[in-house]
């Protein structure tokens, strides 16, 4: 296992149960050390649960995870505080989960201000840059509720990027969007991938997987049934 310390994501024999039934059954991943890993599989196959284990939103009973240099063990044990781990691992949700009481700009500025204790000016210029990058600088003062779904998801991406995470997790980022909005969000994700951002994406969108994935993992009933490059795994 040469170069272990540099590997961004490693999942070994991950086991998780819910109400006595296994939702993840000895899941081990190869080839996910960098680049874009895409998790595919039917609903209920465990792919979202696996993703949520990666930043400690779910605890698991067996196996271990190494992510962005931090180690997570069974029962919610980790080498560092979960909040330290999560600074290095950004997450984007299917339902965006923007903070409705804050403006778009304040959504993006919140974590740099509160978690990284950045001065206001620095946090603001970082947020403005990121909103520019996702094409939404004109909406900085707007409330999230006034934006379209695609715009909200781009804000959510900017919000996660504001912490400069080493790994980004995307949980079905386009499932709640119509096709036009889907493509505007996917463009942003593909751009990030081209820029060398390590990421794990849960998606049903095989087109996106073929375009961007460096590694594809297919799950069924909590088990890995295939993993490899997109051409090896996808039909």
């Amino acid at each position, binding site marked *: 296992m040469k170069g272990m310390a540099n590997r961004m994501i490693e999942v070994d024999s991950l086991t998780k149960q819910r109400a006595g039934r296994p939702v993840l059954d000895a899941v081990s991943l190869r080839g996910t050390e960098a680049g874009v890993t895409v998790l595919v599989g039917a609903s209920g196959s465990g792919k979202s649960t696996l993703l949520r284990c990666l930043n400690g939103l779910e605890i698991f009973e067996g196996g271990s995870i190494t992510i962005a240099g931090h180690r997570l063990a069974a029962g919610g044990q980790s080498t560092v505080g979960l909040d330290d781990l*999560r600074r290095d691992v*950004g997450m984007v*949700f299917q339902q965006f*989960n923007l903070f409705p009481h804050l403006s778009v700009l304040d959504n993006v500025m919140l974590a740099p201000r509160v*978690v990284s204790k950045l001065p206001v000016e620095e946090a603001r210029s970082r947020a403005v840059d990121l909103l520019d990058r996702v094409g939404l600088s004109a909406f900085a003062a707007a*409330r999230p509720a006034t934006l379209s779904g695609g715009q909200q998801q781009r804000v959510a991406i900017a919000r996660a990027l504001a912490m400069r995470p080493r790994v980004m997790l995307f949980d079905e980022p386009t499932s709640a969007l119509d096709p036009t909005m889907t493509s505007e969000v996917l463009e942003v994700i593909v751009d990030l991938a081209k820029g060398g951002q390590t990421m794990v994406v849960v998606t049903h969108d095989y087109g996106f997987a073929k375009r961007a994935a460096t590694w594809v993992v297919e799950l069924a009933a909590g088990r890995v049934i295939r993993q490899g490059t997109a051409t090896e795994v996808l039909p």
Partner: protein
Amino acid sequence: MIGCRHTIVAVACVVAATVSWAGAAELDEIQSRRELVWAGDQEGGGPHVFPDPANPRRLTGFEVEFAKLLAGELGVKARFQQGQWDRLPLLLDQSVDCVINGLELTPERRRDYGCSRPYFGYALQMVGRRAAPPATLADLAEPGPSGAWRIGVLTGSAAEIEMRARAARGEAQIEVIGYDGTLDSMEQVQTGVLDAAVLDDCIVAFYADRFAGLRNVDRPFAGGLYTVLTSHRTPKLAAAIDEAIGRLIADGRLKTLYDRWDLAGRQQMLMLRDAAEIPVARGRTLGELLRQALPLLLSSAGMTVLLSCTAFPLAVAAGLAVAVGRLYGPAWLRPLLTGYVEVLRGTPLMLQLYAIFFLLPKIGLALPALAAAIIGLALNYSAYESEIYRAGLKAVPLGQFEAALSLGLTKWQALRHVLVPQAVRIVMPPVTSDFIALFKDTSVCSAITVIELTKRYSVLALSTGRIVELAVVTAVLYLCMSWPLALLSRWFESRLDRPAEGGP
């Protein structure tokens, strides 16, 4: 159908019977039902009316025996009706025929009620702590060691009127504090909250053994006479009572009764025999009434505002802390906070105020009435606010918490910056509505001597006899204060009715 009509007739008869029965009964009705209903307050009521220590279900007291004699003279039995002392006269409009409970004969009472010839003479007696000032009544002319002397009295009693008049005339440097219970003021003197109390001499004599730490200050002063109160609508009953009292005085049965209670002397009997006529007070116009009452009502409304505006922010802050602790605090803390909420929600506010004001001094923590009232209201309402906040926090979608955690915020940072600000918006309407409720609940504070709007109304209504007019003025004052709050509440709701924010 026929059965139905019968039912209606029967109901109508019952209603008619009830209506005609409401209020005091006239002599012939009392004699036909063979029962004289008399009202008194047995709470701390010795030696007048009090539960027999040997058998607390039985009432005893010299007025119980006096009522029995009186009823016997009318050829009927006596039946007791319990009431709050300063509201006893109001019962004459309900279901009692007369009030016998140490009510002093005053010009105002003669105007508003039927007053019998006196059946007892009393004087006021001041009591203080042993070996503590004031030493004499004359000492009250100068301020005490810590400013104005704090003097407790029974609300609505002749002692209250006398002491307030002395303060108003500048004859005494005193702060007069009214209590609902006879013994409350003696308790408070004993615990050191008050400098002295002023009560009827027969009460002081009766409870002297129980309050061994107290002593009589100076001689009795400012005496008066007790009268039996009847309604103006029952003149025959009033006349019969007068004649009966006359017979009881003349044939010595009243003296025998008082001798048994150690209340009588030759002087007492001579005084009763020769009791002077008390003049009838002049009625006042509405304008005069308002000129006199409005400034008092307004200043008491100020007390109501002060109580609500200080207690409620404290209640909201404590409630939020309790809610957060119950939802996100350490496991050992949660049952404690649940207990806190259930105890404060499950016991009456009045009881909590009593505990803070009357029981804490017994363990050396004597709070001024205002502070006790604010703390009591804040504690009580914090339980309700915490439940509202708990619901509000639970109403914020879980995704909000997860999104905040995923950004690296700690649990407490997520609460402070993401969950609580959203919960606050959700709970605004119920919290505003609770503010209105607390605003009205401040009236309970009169139980611990804080005079707010309702208490002031009650005192003024009884002393002037203008119950309805002053009720309207008081209600208008309450509405003037609560209406803006209602508007505020509606404004919050309209803000929340706008299209939902957040997800698609």
